[in-house]
């Protein structure tokens, strides 16, 4: 048992910190702190900076630009990135499609798509969920019918995160209508510019736009865009769900949120009194701090174990459930800490007017509402519990 970071790891942390200081645009960091909507350009600039440093795709094979970070290094990177208020790296190309191509793609597909992910040519989004297929993905209805050297795709995808920026979407489509629902699914890459692809934004509970509906009407997709074999999409989908769940606990985000809330609570108000001296508040914050301190270790323990065993499946469900509980508890307490000051609708109207509450504070209520999504997406916490009951407890 040894919880200390090695000298190399300490040096690595300093390197990451220096990189963030040098390369993360301060305006972008401020936007992240104020929970403003990032432009496509903001996210691309960070993506490009990371790629320039060779840190964009650390988990990829070395031949494709990976750097072989250990689980601990990834954890350090995530922690420092969150502390510096770096944008969340859009995972769909780097962390989701790429592992699928490494495992199931053809050499041509790898050579074509992977460099374009790195250099930012292609922005990917995910076409999994449908109006009738959320947790029960096998119920999906989007049809792909073979027509010569192409598939004709018809259907509707939803909850497509940042689809408004995307050039490509990887989709689960039904290629065989009969038989077991899981058996007739295929994994298809679709160019968003193809005629028949239509993206419609969905406005979310707090007022922001980050997810979309994607309508596919007679979309002609070259058969060479099929990944793996026809009807093996379910295998690929399951592989993807169990893969690359690094940072699923979001510990770095929780640490940043905790530190920010503590700093706020320690700031004297006009009366000279501090929120942190309120016993009930301090007890709530201490409780979260304790859960978070434990979570840091749980995260490291489980990612190190996953790395050793090469099977991160069950661990990632524990990390997701507990990590999300802590993040949501912090969102809740941050909102409550502000009291009525969290009430203003965060809009441009607040900017530049010193009489109004600062945007960074006003954003807390919106973030609280937005982050209720975390216990729903990526397999709801209830689905994670089903998985654990079966896989870990044998129930």
């Amino acid at each position, binding site marked *: *048992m*040894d*919880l*200390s*970071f*090695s000298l190399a*790891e300490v040096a690595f942390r300093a390197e990451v910190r220096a990189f963030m200081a040098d390369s993360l645009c301060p305006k972008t960091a401020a936007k992240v702190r104020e929970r403003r909507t990032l432009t496509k350009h903001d996210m691309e600039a960070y993506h490009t900076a990371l790629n320039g440093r060779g840190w964009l795709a650390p988990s990829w094979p070395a031949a494709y630009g990976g750097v072989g970070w250990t689980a*601990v290094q990834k954890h350090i990177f995530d922690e420092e990135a969150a502390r510096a208020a770096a944008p969340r790296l859009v995972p769909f190309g780097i962390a989701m499609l790429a592992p699928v191509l490494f495992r199931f793609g053809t050499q041509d597909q790898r050579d074509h798509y992977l460099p374009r992910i790195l250099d930012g040519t292609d922005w990917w989004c995910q076409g999994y969920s449908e109006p009738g297929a959320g947790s029960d993905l096998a119920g999906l209805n989007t049809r792909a019918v073979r027509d010569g050297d192409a598939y004709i795709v018809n259907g509707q995808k939803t909850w497509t995160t940042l689809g408004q920026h995307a050039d490509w979407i990887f989709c689960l489509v039904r290629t065989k209508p009969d038989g077991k629902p899981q058996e007739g699914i295929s994994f298809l890459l679709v160019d968003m510019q193809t005629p028949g692809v239509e993206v419609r934004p969905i406005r979310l509970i707090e007022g922001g736009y980050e997810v979309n509906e994607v309508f596919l009407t007679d979309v002609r997709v070259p058969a060479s865009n099929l990944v793996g074999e026809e009807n093996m999409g379910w295998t690929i989908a399951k592989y993807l769900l169990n893969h690359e769940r690094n940072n699923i606990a979001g510990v770095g985000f929780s640490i940043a949120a905790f530190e920010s809330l*503590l700093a706020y*609570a*320690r700031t004297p108000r006009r009366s000279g009194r*501090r929120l*942190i*001296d309120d*016993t009930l508040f*301090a*007890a709530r*914050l*201490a*409780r979260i*701090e*304790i*859960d978070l*301190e*434990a*979570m*840091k*270790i*749980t995260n*490291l*323990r*489980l990612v*190190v*174990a996953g790395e050793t065993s090469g099977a991160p499946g069950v661990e990632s469900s*524990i990390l997701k*459930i*507990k990590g999300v509980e802590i993040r949501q508890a912090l969102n809740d307490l941050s909102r409550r800490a502000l009291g009525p000051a969290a009430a203003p609708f965060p809009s441009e109207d607040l900017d530049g007017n010193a009489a109004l509450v600062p945007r960074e504070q006003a954003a807390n209520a919106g973030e609280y509402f937005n982050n209720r999504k975390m216990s729903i997406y990526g397999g709801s916490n*209830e689905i994670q*519990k*089903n998985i*654990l*009951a079966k896989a*870990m*407890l*044998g*129930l």
Partner: protein
Amino acid sequence: MNFEQTDDHRMLTDSLLRLLTDACDAKTRNVTAYAAPFHSPDLWSKLADLGVFYALADPAQGGFGGAGFDITTIFQALGKALCPEPVLPTLMAARLLTHAGADLGPLLSGAVHYAVAVGELDSWSLDEIETTARNGTLTGRKSVVYGGAVAEKILVIARDGAELSLFEIASADAEVIPYAMIDGGGAAEVFLDATPARLLLENAGAAVQDALDAAALALSAESLGAMDVTRDTLVDYLKQRRQFGRPIGSNQALQHRAVELVTEIEQVRSIVILAASRMGTDSQTRTVSMCKHLAGRVARRVAEEAIQMHGGIAMTWEAPVSHYVKRLVMIDSQFGDTDYHIKRVMEGLQAT
């Protein structure tokens, strides 16, 4: 960063668990745990032979352990077997004697049983200690002194002028009234009336705090061991018990609750590891408080859920799980409960 047990600790765990499985099975344990002197000389000597007491003490004092992970390794195993032997006071005495520079020989060999008397009738807070030293004697009353029933020597924290000092008394010189605890094992009320006492350490506040930290860590680890067994027992029961023609574990309501317990137990395992690693550092006391708080919070939830999901069977004395849940709940009141320890964590947040 390495979360593997060392080979030494793995061997210690294995041999201790083997010994306890053999010499502290449920039936034997329940006899010892509820009948004075709440102690099995046979098991005690086997623990001594295995080197358990040496592993609790600093090498500089003749031991071969005493670090955070030595403590958690031993107490997790003791918790798995619900061992009622007074190992906790032995650990605390080892810390205190070490701080006092006193001889640990009789403690390490297991020849002498020690108890540590901190708490008093209505408070166990160091600030409210009323037992007083005068002219080489002590007068006062110490309450719920763990292991007091069997101890030949009792280390007593007493007011000595403005300060707290550490004294040693022979229990034969005091009035000691032993009793069983609801979760097994023995404690005692200790009445001191001009009882002759040997001063071991003046200004003992820091030393006592260290012993309390070690105790809180040990209790958290013991609780973790008991939680692990309770979880396994519960999951087995959910698979075996059939109602409405199927195992009750096929009900999602119970599955999710069982999973939540597992997730929380893993959080306790993490904080026990963290607190063990912080022993001997500046953040020892605060991290131990985090640990004891979380262990206490989760232990009660595990206990109450285990009873509920076992149904009536967990309400019986005969079912081993009933003894585990008692221990899990009552550990919280030993050396600071969840509320006490969260207040100490709050103080760190409130510091300027």
